[in-house]
């Protein structure tokens, strides 16, 4: 199975290559040159710290999912804004680097990082053991909880009240992982599993339509939606599905850049500029 998959991928690459030369998109010499350049680049890129290269360019590229309010998203003027964006702007301003914001598809984030298209992943990126194997994380810069949100006046007051109720969450989110750490509780839900939606937005709309009784989501996201829809409509339960932390992901060899960001974030916590940005997006 594995082998045939590999053969298929190689076959496809060969074909595409064949087509490119057939169409004449690149002549032989240019291709050869590109190949040499690439291998020359790729070899050291595997181990070498790219800090000097970034310094020389004066620019650092941050990869983010621009659909992810309130951490990184587009405002009505199509400008990318958000808590993470403000924080990153300040960090790199202090280090005389220009910040380039590159929207990426979230499922491709590690591929983008390791291909060198972006220099970091900074977008409510939860620190997990699996991800630690692929990327180097900074110290946590923001705490997050997996909170339970209900409609105001709901009879769900605690976690145990969720038994026999319909509970919604986003597919592939850490909310689902957090719930699955309590399999007994999940089995007691109406349907025996959470109702999964493509986005949190849809989960919240389903809650509003009263087709589900509760939504489990990142606290930062949940608070943002509640603010958008009116705080009096929803309740966040005191009990939650556990804590987690957001970090910034770098290529494993980029230690200098990582240390620089960690140090600047520490400075910003001390001088209060971190709190100012926090209050701007999440209130007190």
């Amino acid at each position, binding site marked *: 199975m594995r082998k045939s998959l590999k053969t298929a*991928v190689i*076959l*496809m*690459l060969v*074909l*595409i*290559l*064949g*087509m*490119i030369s*057939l*169409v004449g*998109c*690149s002549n032989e010499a240019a*291709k050869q040159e*590109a*190949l040499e350049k*690439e*291998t020359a680049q*790729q070899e050291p890129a595997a181990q070498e710290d790219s800090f000097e290269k970034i310094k020389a360019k004066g620019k650092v590229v941050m*990869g983010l999912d*621009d*659909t*992810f*309010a309130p951490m990184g*998203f*587009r*405002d*009505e*003027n*199509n400008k990318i804004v958000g808590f993470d964006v403000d924080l990153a702007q300040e960090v790199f301003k202090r280090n005389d680097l220009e910040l380039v914001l*590159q*929207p*990426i*598809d979230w499922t*491709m984030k590690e*591929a*983008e990082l390791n*291909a060198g298209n972006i220099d970091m992943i900074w977008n409510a990126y939860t620190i997990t053991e699996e991800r630690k194997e692929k990327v180097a994380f900074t110290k946590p810069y923001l705490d997050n909880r997996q909170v339970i949100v209900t409609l105001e006046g709901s009879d769900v007051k605690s976690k145990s009240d969720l038994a026999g109720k319909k509970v919604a969450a986003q597919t592939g989110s850490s909310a689902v992982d957090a719930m699955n750490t309590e399999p007994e509780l999940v089995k007691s839900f109406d349907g025996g599993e959470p109702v999964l939606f493509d*986005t*949190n*937005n849809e989960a*919240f*709309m389903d809650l509003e339509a009263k087709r589900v009784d509760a939504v489990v989501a990142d606290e930062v996201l949940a608070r943002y*939606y509640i603010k*958008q*829809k009116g705080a009096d409509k929803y309740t966040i339960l005191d009990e939650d599905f556990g804590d987690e932390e957001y970090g910034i992901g770098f290529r494993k060899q980029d230690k200098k850049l990582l240390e620089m960001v960690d140090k600047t974030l520490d400075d910003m916590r001390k001088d209060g500029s971190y709190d100012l940005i926090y209050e701007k997006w999440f209130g007190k």
Partner: protein
Amino acid sequence: MFEYILRLLPALLSGLEVTLKVFFLTLVISIPLGILVALGRLSKIKPLVFLVELYIWVMRGTPLLLQIVVIFFGLPIVGITFDRFPAAILAFVLNYAAYFGEIFRGGIESIDKGQYDAAKVLGFTPAKTFTRIILPQMIKIVLPSVANEVITLVKDTSLVYVVGLGELLRAGKIASNRDASLVPLIVVGVFYLALTAVLTAVFQKLEERYSYFQ
């Protein structure tokens, strides 16, 4: 509500710009390429026929989304690196040229063999025979099928999100997530419908122009 939609427009229009760029570039490059693919497939050179058939099989046999991912993320491994936009265009062109190639092949094959003999008798070179006699008739035959593909292409452009390009549907999703509302997605739907309406009208006009036997 009306005011809200007005405020959505700038972001959606800049998404529309990307969508239209992908659409037109793909069309302009893949249609001539499709003719070459058709000719390759009908060629008498066996290895060329085999290669073209293999190419068509791969392009039609795998999801376009996968092809974009392979070209943008896979090709750098073997030393060929494209920027986001060129990578997306390359994937679209290769994919659509395969479909167009098969449509054109059908068109060319449906023309009576006697016309080639007639052209020969009249002293046309093979190249002239193709451009002056076969091609115009082929266009007439394939127009409805091409219209189908072109309309599919409008909606397929939304796949470029995978390399981080902000096209129309993505712009709508961003606004939808930001404002916790379905309205932006509905506006996006109206945009696509309007595009399709224009294209349908254009192809209707083209078909009228080519309906010279009626």
